[in-house]
């Protein structure tokens, strides 16, 4: 399941740190030569730490360094790279207890160095480090100003690469962690990989703080598998006593998860959770990028992959490949698996393709339906403001779970929850605005939640559709366009500052008859104004508007609906948006025709 899929992915993760290593920010460096003598000294010959921080990296440099989750009254050291308290015995306070604890930690650190030096045999760097600490030179080291006992310090030997990354150090550290973390469990069959291996008492490595969003502030390290109290384990037993997990599955899965969560190409952070995904056999196919960014080239690649004949070795690879995705949240220091998806890659491709097929819609500017990225579909559920650069949605004003719910609907090929639809309809009413992302989301809701095959809303205007709500929406768009056209300034071409949509869209889409019948009455005045203006273009427009209004009335078998529910309001807004975008396309077509000298009257369109 999740743990095995993560552990199996390790060979495909580029730059995965060695076992039980993780990228850590190291502030200080203690450099010695091959004879164990300090490289930097002060006037009195005492060793001096060099500062790895600079203007670009104020906290130090990031190195793959040994790491293990440590706790308890006497936390053990890590190999070579550790805090100043361990490496130099710098106490956290001035109390006797703090001094004794620093001394204990420093002694344990040096003991671990000795184990490493013995395992490294004749390695020059290991011998030099051992000589330095055996002579006690570390106790004389001068602390730089501002150094804290919790700062990390690494050791460096002149002419050698970082000693903590050498093979002997990796082997020593792995054996040390294995001894610490699997001392009691012994050997057994791992539940995850079904192999007989040494089992873990607890997971050596947590998920790094900050990689999983938490609602308030910065999170802390979180364990993927955690049994800490008697009520959590079987029969009151804690840790992994009843969960046989080997080191490869336990430690490997967390290491891979950390790497995937740190990679923007494999995760999508949401306000309350994070989605992480990967393929069993990685392919050059941005499946999730397609969903999240909706770049036309990515979308085309997904459709091309889906339609490619499944023949040959490459196609067999796609058939056998699997798509994995996990939605993770954190509860204090425990990881919460909110969702786990394990499906064949072709099935994932089908779902992504269906997502675009269900939501993309033609907008005002183009002739072809345009997809919308998931982030924007979620964002349009929030507030927005008109700025000098256009309409902008306010980040984090959407419901916290909007991103997660929409991704769930995309990856499971289901309808998003109707709570989001009522939220969307409320925002459309409050803002008096249906734009491309909102229309696309409405189309998605309608096609997935309400429509049968022959009732689906197409991506462009359906001129024959007779749903009263849809026709009412179209009629409202025509009345708005007529008002704007009739009341516009003949010199500037600008219409009124606020239209009927600004004023009554919210109530018109919920109670069309009560709101639109007065508007229909007023439209007679607007039509008369066009008819009597004396300008030929206005008279042509009058004919076009009058004809369109009559055609829409003909589509209605009954009077306008009195009340519309969420489904009806969605259709109303879709009709409204698609009528406007259709009219815009028509105007553009006629303008192009006129520019090419084909002579069609541009104003003979509403």
């Amino acid at each position, binding site marked *: 399941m999740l743990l095995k899929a993560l552990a199996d992915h390790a060979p495909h993760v580029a730059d995965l740190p060695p076992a039980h290593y993780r990228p850590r920010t190291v502030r200080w460096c203690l450099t010695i030569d091959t004879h164990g003598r300090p490289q930097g000294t002060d006037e009195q010959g005492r060793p001096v730490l060099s500062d790895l921080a600079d203007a670009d990296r104020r906290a130090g440099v990031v190195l793959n360094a040994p790491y293990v989750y440590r706790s308890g009254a006497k936390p053990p050291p890590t190999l070579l790279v550790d805090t100043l308290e361990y490496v130099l015995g710098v106490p956290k306070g001035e109390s006797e207890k703090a001094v004794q604890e620093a001394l204990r930690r420093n002694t344990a650190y040096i003991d671990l160095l000795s184990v490493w030096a013995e395992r490294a045999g004749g390695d020059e760097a290991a011998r030099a480090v051992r000589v330095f600490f055996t002579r006690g030179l570390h106790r004389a080291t001068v602390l730089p100003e501002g150094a804290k006992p919790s700062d990390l310090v690494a050791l460096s030997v002149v002419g050698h690469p970082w000693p903590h990354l050498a093979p002997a150090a990796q082997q020593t550290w792995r054996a040390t962690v294995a001894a610490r973390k699997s001392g009691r469990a012994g050997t057994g069959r791992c539940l995850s990989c079904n192999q007989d291996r040494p089992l873990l008492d607890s997971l050596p490595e947590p998920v790094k703080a900050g990689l999983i969003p938490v609602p308030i502030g910065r999170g802390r390290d979180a364990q993927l598998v955690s049994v800490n*109290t008697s009520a959590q384990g079987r029969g009151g037993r804690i840790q992994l006593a009843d969960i046989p*997990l080997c080191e490869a599955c336990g430690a490997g899965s967390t290491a891979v998860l950390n790497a995937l969560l740190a990679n923007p190409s494999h995760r999508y952070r949401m306000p309350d959770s994070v989605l992480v995904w990967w393929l069993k056999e990685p392919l050059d196919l941005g499946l999730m990028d397609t969903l999240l960014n909706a770049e036309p080239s990515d979308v085309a690649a997904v459709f091309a992959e889906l339609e490619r004949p499944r023949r040959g070795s490459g196609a067999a690879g796609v058939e056998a490949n699997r798509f994995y995705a996990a939605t993770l949240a954190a509860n204090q220091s425990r990881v919460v698996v909110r969702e786990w998806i394990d499906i064949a890659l072709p099935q994932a491709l089908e779902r992504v393709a269906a997502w675009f097929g269900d939501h993309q819609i033609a907008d005002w500017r183009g002739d072809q339906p345009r997809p919308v990225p998931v982030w924007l579909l979620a964002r349009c559920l929030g507030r927005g403001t008109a700025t000098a650069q256009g309409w902008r949605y306010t980040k984090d004003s959407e419901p916290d779970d909007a991103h997660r719910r929409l991704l769930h609907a995309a990856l499971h090929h289901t309808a998003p929850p109707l709570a989001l639809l009522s939220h969307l309809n409320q925002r459309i009413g409050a803002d008096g605005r249906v734009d491309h992302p909102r229309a696309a989301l409405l189309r998605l809701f309608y096609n997935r939640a309400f429509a049968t095959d022959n009732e689906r809303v197409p991506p462009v205007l359906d001129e024959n559709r007779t749903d009263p709500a849809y026709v009412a929406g179209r009629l409202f768009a025509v009345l708005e366009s007529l008002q704007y056209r009739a009341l516009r300034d003949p010199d500037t071409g600008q219409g009124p500052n606020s239209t009927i949509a600004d004023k009554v869209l919210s109530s018109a889409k919920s109670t069309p008859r009560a709101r639109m019948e007065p508007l229909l009455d007023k439209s007679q005045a607007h039509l008369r104004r066009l008819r009597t203006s004396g300008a030929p273009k206005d008279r042509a427009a009058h004919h076009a508007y009058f004809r369109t209004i009559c055609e829409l009335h003909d589509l209605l078998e009954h009077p306008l609906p009195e009340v519309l529910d969420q489904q009806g309001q969605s259709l109303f807004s879709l009709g409204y948006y698609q009528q406007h975008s259709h009219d815009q396309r028509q105007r553009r077509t006629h303008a192009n025709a006129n520019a090419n000298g084909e002579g069609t009257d541009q104003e003979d369109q509403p």
Partner: protein
Amino acid sequence: MTAPPPAPAPPLAVEVEGPFACFTRPEFKTERVSYPVMTPSAATGLLEAIFWKPEFSYRIDRIEVLNPIAWFTVRRNEVDQTVSADWVRRAMADPTQRFDAEAHRDQRSMTGLRDVAYRIHAHIVLRPHADAHPAKYRDQFRRRVERGACFSQPFLGTREFSASFAKPSQRPPIAASADFGAMLHSIDYSGARETYRWFHASMVEGVVAVPEHGAELPGAATVRTGGRG
């Protein structure tokens, strides 16, 4: 002329369904994540809630998944301690002793299943001391299912997700196949300590076939113990 082999005993079958279920995976038992389908051990517990006798035990043959697999998540308030015998003794001696749930609050998440329906196929296996024909128990079981009788309310993985049960119908299993990895097969309570048995579970066209025996983990008797040890 050789005698024909004995006919296999007719299996028992019962359909169970419920709005929620959680068959917790062992590796995610704190922030619970369910297996996608019912485990054989949960099916055994469910059958025993309907009808149980010391003379026999159930052996699950297969589990048919009748509803598409759907999930839900919920976070609940729980406590972080279990009741110990020592605490009960102290409470009995001191009537003022109280368990303060607020002081031991532990919020835990559950990713469970919703709208589940399964058809469980099982056999009755007589224990050595049984002296009746297994048909007697099968008939008793069927009569209880027909009239909806049960010893305790059957549940789907956890006690708060109660199940309803009925005679098997002709509903077809879902057309889906999947590999679930290691799954709990059964728990052996016969010794001083619990022993767990596992099998590699996979669903083929909506049917999870259950082997007769699960595999014990090496060292299970000494290392993997439950609360009775």
